[in-house]
């Protein structure tokens, strides 16, 4: 399941489709599970009439959560040691997202091999919506 250092080289990239045509209901589902009920994500009337946005939009943390699936599917369960992101553009209902992890380096820490990845998620127009990094423990 987990990645081995032997099978990797710097520059290797792994891409996964995270969601196709993001539904408002999934954003509602994330609000309920995470506990973040900010109306900007679920309340179209508030968001368009009071906050001044064209429609509700996804929680940044929903995009980070979906991107996290790409990472854990790739590096294996319980292998991440670091994961951090910046939210660089909003994600809207109807968006289709793809995320890529690119291997930047393999280092060693406490006798274990650690992979360092650049992480990036883009929408159907090629606009970057999330930019970050991750580190994961590798097999030898």
């Amino acid at each position, binding site marked *: 399941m987990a990645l081995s250092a032997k099978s990797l080289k710097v520059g290797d990239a792994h891409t996964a489709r995270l969601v196709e045509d993001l539904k408002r209901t999934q954003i509602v589902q*994330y609000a309920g599970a995470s*506990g973040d*009920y900010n109306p900007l994500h679920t309340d179209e009337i*508030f968001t368009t*009439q009071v906050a*001044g946005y064209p429609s509700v939009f996804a929680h940044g*943390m929903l995009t980070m959560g979906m991107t996290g*699936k790409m990472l854990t599917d790739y590096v294996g369960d319980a292998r991440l040691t670091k994961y*951090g992101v910046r939210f660089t553009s909003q994600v809207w209902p109807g968006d289709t997202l793809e995320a890529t992890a690119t291997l930047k380096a393999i280092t060693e820490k406490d006798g274990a091999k650690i992979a360092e990845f650049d992480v990036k998620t883009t929408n159907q127009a090629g606009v970057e919506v999330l930019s970050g990094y991750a580190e994961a423990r590798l097999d030898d």
Partner: protein
Amino acid sequence: MTAQERERQLATKTFPVEAGHILMFARSVGDDNRVYSDADYAKTTEAGGIIAPPTFAQASAQFDPDYGLRPKIGQPWFGSGKNATGITRAPGGGGGGGGGGLHAEQHFEYHRPLKAGDVLTATTTPGKTWEKEGKRSGKLVFSESVTEYRDQKGELVITARGVGVRTERPVEQPAEKA
């Protein structure tokens, strides 16, 4: 720092990590990995049992009695009802103003996997604040907070650093979107 801020800085919250909550959270991010939902399967994996997805610590908001982005019984709520907002807000709050701003960054450091059955204690300390002039949303005010999640033995499980931003006006969309 006011007395109230000092109290908040030291406030700790209890976060029980429950299997049913992990299941719902994993579904909401579109993750069907059985290590988040099937205890028998999870036992056969390296994780050794049900674990939480990497961003699950964010759902500790459910257990924070003071969390501001959840409607509370008997209290006004700023989302729409009869009117577009349930409260009268001070003018000039800007786009992100409704609801405590927007989330700019989130960072996690995992000291060990988070498991169903863990009972964490979360301690949040405010970090630095800074300002920037944004091209798409006017003046931006950033503020950082660091939360340490410790287990029953007091051992550090996750360190989380979040950055929030308040915008002067709603964020303009890139040309590709328009």
